[in-house]
Each structure stands twice: as structure tokens, then as C-alpha cells.
């Protein structure tokens, strides 16, 4: 067998180093906001400043970026030194190593949107043993691995609101509906779809779900799946996509087929992504909870948990945000919002 010469090894190393250097530049560029925050917090010098790590399922999803914006907007006022960071893919094991390092760095509160209900539990329990307060937001772990869960919306709330948007539009008319989900194994999607089916069975017998297709998280797959739905199920008059890739993809496909106004498209997605389709009239209404408020509420819960003033049941009052129900460690954000054109223009996440 031929061996690789020193020259080649050296070249390979140089190339690798170049890649690492490039990646490093990118990382430095993307974190100035975190640095400036730290400086601001250090100058305030109050003993009550707490360090909070806000960990999303993954960075790079507008939804979580919106939650970060909300959290940042209230962090200073709550005397919170906020670090927002998460894995680049939906990885629970990456979250575990982040949690461990934040505990080691002496953070007071860890607020995580869990990629998996069980695999974070050992790390979170170890954190609580060391006196770190643990809350989950957006996506819960098993209850004994955290102190509070900030629940953005209940499964029933989302399912029933999505169906209500369609039912209100068709006003009792017999209507065939198709669903465009992300992947067949996505727990959230499947729970929402079950809740939609339940709402239809209970309240809207005029709606009929004809098919469920999947976009696999890819825009092009969403577009072609929608085209296949429209051609393969000619009676379908409404498409509900409870997925933030699927909804714009469905809108794009309906536009390409020239069926605006003939097929009603709605679902769950971020305003910044839906703007184009709302502006040109392909989509009139869609659903999402207020992600900014989710970030704000999570920060307020973090502060209250650190202060020891958070009630495990009852009402949690937040000045300027409202009153929130707390049930057995679950803080409810409330019913999701129905976004129309005006709301789409107003929000930026």
C-alpha cells in the first residue's frame, strides 16, 4: 500500500486549518450582541444580577430567533445577563453538553426547549442538585427534570384554532381538507393533527380530512407535495399545514398553479416568512402564538424562580404582559393568535 507523504499530510493540515479559521471568523462575527450584553450587565454591578442560559431546540429557526428577541427585550429590565445559544441541528446530545458547560460556568437559571423529553433529564437533574434553577419552554421534558414549563400553547388550543380558521371561512359548507405536515414521526405535528381531527369530529362535521402529506422539512418537497395534493385530490378546497416550512411551500405551490382564492391555505408559520403570501393575497389568515411574548414570559419566570417567588399553581402576574395561569408547574401562555395582514406587518420574527 502506498503511504501518504509528508508534503501531502502538511497540505491537508493547512487546508483543515483554513477551514477552521474560516468557521471561526463566522462564529466571532455572529456573537457581538452577546458580548455587548455582558459588558452592560457588568457595569450595573447589582448583587442581584442573574445569569440565564436560554437554549432553543436549534439556532437558525426564525421561531426561536423571535423568542430570543422577546427575551432580550426584557432581560436588562429584569437584571438578567442573558446567553442565547443552542445546537445547529435538532440534537438532544448537543443540548446536554451545553447544559453541563453552563452549569460549570455558574449560571443561575437554565431555560431549555428540549429536543427530547427524556435524554436531557439526567443533566438537568444534576444541575438542580447543584442549585441551578431549571425551566423548560416551548418543548417540555419529563416533569421531574425541571421546576417549571412555560407552555406556549396547548395541543388542543392549536388544533382547534387551526380548524376554526378554516371553518370560519367556509361557514358550514361541505369542504374537503388536506393536511401538509413535516415528517410522519414529528410528535408535535401528530398531536396537533389528532387535535384537529377531534375538533372536526366534535364541532365541524362539514369538514373532511382527505389526505395527510409530508414535506420532510424541505421547501421543494412541500411545493411538489402540494401540487400532488391539488391534482390527486381535485375536491380538496383547503390545505392546513401546521409546519413552518409546509405553509409557505403550500402557498407557493397554490400561487404557481394559479389557484389563489380557489384553494384556501392556512397553518402554522412565522409572520416574516408569510409576509409575501399575505401581501399577494394567497394566504389570508394563519396561526401562531406570540413568540416574542413566549420569550418575555420565559425571562419573567426565570427571574421569579431565581427569586423564589414563583407560584407552582395559581396566577402569575407580569407587569405589562398580563396574568398567566399556572397549573402544577406549567405556565400557560394562552390561546394562539390568528395573524392577518395587519398583524403580519407588525411582527418581525
Amino acid at each position, binding site marked *: 500500500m502506498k503511504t501518504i507523504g509528508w508534503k501531502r499530510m502538511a497540505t491537508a493540515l493547512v487546508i483543515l486549518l483554513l477551514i477552521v479559521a474560516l*468557521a471561526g471568523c463566522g462564529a466571532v462575527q455572529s456573537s457581538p450582541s452577546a458580548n455587548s450584553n455582558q459588558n452592560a450587565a457588568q457595569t450595573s454591578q447589582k448583587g442581584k444580577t442573574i445569569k440565564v442560559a436560554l437554549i432553543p431546540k436549534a*439556532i*437558525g429557526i426564525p421561531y426561536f430567533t423571535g423568542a430570543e428577541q422577546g427575551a432580550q427585550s426584557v432581560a436588562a429590565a429584569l437584571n438578567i445577563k442573558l446567553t442565547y445559544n443552542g445546537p445547529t441541528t435538532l440534537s438532544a446530545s448537543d443540548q446536554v453538553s451545553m447544559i453541563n458547560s453552563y452549569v460549570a460556568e455558574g449560571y443561575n437559571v437554565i431555560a431549555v426547549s428540549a429536543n427530547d423529553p427524556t435524554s436531557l433529564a439526567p443533566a438537568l437533574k444534576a444541575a438542580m442538585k447543584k442549585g441551578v434553577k431549571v425551566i423548560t419552554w416551548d418543548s417540555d421534558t419529563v416533569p421531574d427534570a425541571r421546576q417549571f414549563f412555560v407552555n406556549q400553547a396547548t395541543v388542543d388550543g392549536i388544533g382547534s384554532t387551526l380548524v376554526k380558521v378554516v371553518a370560519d371561512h367556509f361557514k358550514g359548507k361541505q369542504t374537503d381538507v388536506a393536511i401538509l405536515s413535516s415528517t410522519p414521526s414529528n410528535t408535535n405535528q401528530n398531536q396537533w393533527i389528532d387535535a384537529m381531527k377531534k375538533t372536526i369530529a366534535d364541532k365541524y362535521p362539514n369538514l373532511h380530512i382527505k389526505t395527510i402529506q409530508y414535506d420532510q*422539512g424541505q421547501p421543494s418537497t412541500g411545493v*411538489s407535495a402540494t401540487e400532488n395534493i391539488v391534482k390527486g385530490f381535485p375536491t380538496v378546497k383547503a390545505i392546513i399545514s401546521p409546519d413552518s416550512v409546509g405553509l409557505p411551500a403550500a402557498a407557493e405551490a397554490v400561487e404557481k398553479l394559479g389557484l389563489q382564492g380557489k384553494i384556501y391555505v392556512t397553518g402554522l408559520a412565522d409572520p*416574516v416568512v408569510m409576509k*409575501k403570501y399575505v401581501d399577494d393575497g394567497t394566504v389570508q389568515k394563519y396561526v401562531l402564538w406570540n413568540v416574542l411574548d413566549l420569550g418575555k414570559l420565559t425571562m419573567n419566570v426565570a427571574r421569579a424562580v431565581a427569586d423564589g417567588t414563583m407560584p407552582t399553581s395559581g396566577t402569575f402576574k407580569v407587569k405589562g404582559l398580563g396574568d398567566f395561569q399556572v397549573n402544577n408547574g406549567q405556565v400557560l401562555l394562552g390561546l394562539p393568535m390568528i395573524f392577518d395582514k395587519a398583524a403580519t406587518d407588525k411582527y418581525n420574527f
Partner: protein
Amino acid sequence: MKNEPSLFWKIMQSRESFLLGLILLLLLIMLVVSPSFLGPGNLMNILTNCATVAIVALGETIVIITKGIDLSVGATMGMVTLFTGSLALNGFPLAVVILVAFLAGIVAGALNGVLISYLKLPPIIVTLGTLSVYSGIMYVITKGNWVTNLPAGLLQLGNFRLFGFVPAPVVVLVVLLLVSTLFLQFSIPGRHIYAVGNNEASARLSGINIKRVIFSAYLIAGFFSAVAGIFYVAYNGFSTPSTGGNMELDAIAAAVIGGTNVFGGKGTPLGTLLGAILLGIVTGALVFFHIPAVWNLAVEGIVILAAVISDAALYRMQTRRI
């Protein structure tokens, strides 16, 4: 019985005509079961929807013919969608956007090429690594945001229709199909690609610069991924940092179904295109048959296996005849 092969056998021997027959048979079944499948525009839709995969697969085919494999083509395409989208959003003129996008794809391909041909590292490991690097860069480009609400110029590029009915991605696909066929069949560097894949040792003895041939194959794959990326984002109107995930598998599948031999030396662009079309028709047909979508992946897998098995069977029958 004479040893003269029958006409049917001759036709079956060509992978392209075998696939074409299979596709026509499928369409015939669809015509009987669900005539609307062949309705106006739907066939063009299917072709349009498999266009980006097919373009990526054309590049992959050239790599596989050299006995290599490129797992980074999907990530390269995804990376280009984000470069294209964010440059366009920042107001750069379309020509600059396209130039930079091409450059990104070529650099990505060249990096693979250097590591594999000049440093002699195994293709599957190198491109597995660059797959991660390029997917990682996607998060860096936009700091994780999506590209959406794109300017009209870029969207027009992806949505123009030649003669009023041939969508842009299909036009590009046809052009690249012709170019790559001419390149592989009639140009000297193209023939060298087959020669290297067939027998590296004898190719070297006949004076072919093996390193340059292998390097150029990965460079071409990067370029094709760039073209696919530009039209992906221009046609679909938005892209995310996970765009192109698993697309390398679809591209390899299309090439293999199309008769490209993973042991090198064999494969044609037309076969790959037919492979991509077959996959597209199967996915579409499942919806028309009202089969629950959870079956899609399994059925696609069966099609791939059927292609590989039929290939092996045909090969064995062929060698027995000789």
C-alpha cells in the same frame, strides 16, 4: 433456437430504453386508473419538481463514473441557495449574485477534488466531512435565518416559461443534459472519465492524467450543484439552513436507477434523468392512488432495490450469452 438476440432483448439491454419502457408502462397504468394524472400540465409539473434533483444527480453521475462518490452535493446546493438568496436580498445585481453562486459551488467542488485526487483520501470520508462543513457554513451565511421575500428579479429567473409553457428549471435541466451528454460521449476529457472509472491502471498507462480527471469530476459536480441551488431558491421562493438535507441520497438513487455503476466506468446523463423522473412519477402516483404518504419512503426504496437487482440480473444474463 438461434443465438441471435431478439429485438426485445436488444432493447432491454440498454438501460435507458428499459427505463423509458418502465416509465411509459407506469403512465399507461395511471391513464387507466387515474386519467387526471396525465391531465394538462401535470406531467410538466412532475418534470419541474424533479428538475433540481436531476441536475444535482447529473453531477453525481460524472463522479460515480470515475468510481467515486460525492455526499456533499446536497449541502453544496443548499449552501448556494442561501448565498444566492442573501446576496439578492442585500441588493446585489443578479449577475453578481449568479457569479458568486457559481463560484461557491466550484470552490466547494474543487476542495473535494483536491482532497480526493491530489491527497488520495477516500471520497466517501472526504465528502462526508465536507457535507458537514458546507451544511455548517449554511448557518454562518444567514446566522441561521431563512432567505425569503426575495426580490422580483431572482424570482423571475426561476419562474420564466420558455414558449410560455416550459418552466425555467426544466429548460436548464435540458441544456445541462445535452451539455453533459456531449461532454461525456464525444469530448476527450469526457472519454477519460469513463477510462479512469473502468480501469485506473490502464488509463494511467495510456498517459491519462488521472488526478486531473478525478479533480475535474468533483469540480463539475460542485458546479452542477450550484446551478441547481440557484434555480431551487429562484423557483421555490425561499430556502432554509436545512435545505438540501438528504438530497445527495436522492441524487445517488437517481443515478443508480439510471444505470450508473457504483463500481465505476458506466452510466449516462440520460439514464440518470430517467431515474429521477421515475422517482418523481412514483411519488406523484402514490398520491393519485390515495396511498397514505407514510409509504413514500418505503416505496422509493423498493424502486431503488428493483433497479439494482434488475441491473445485476441483466448483467448476468448478458455475460451468460457471451
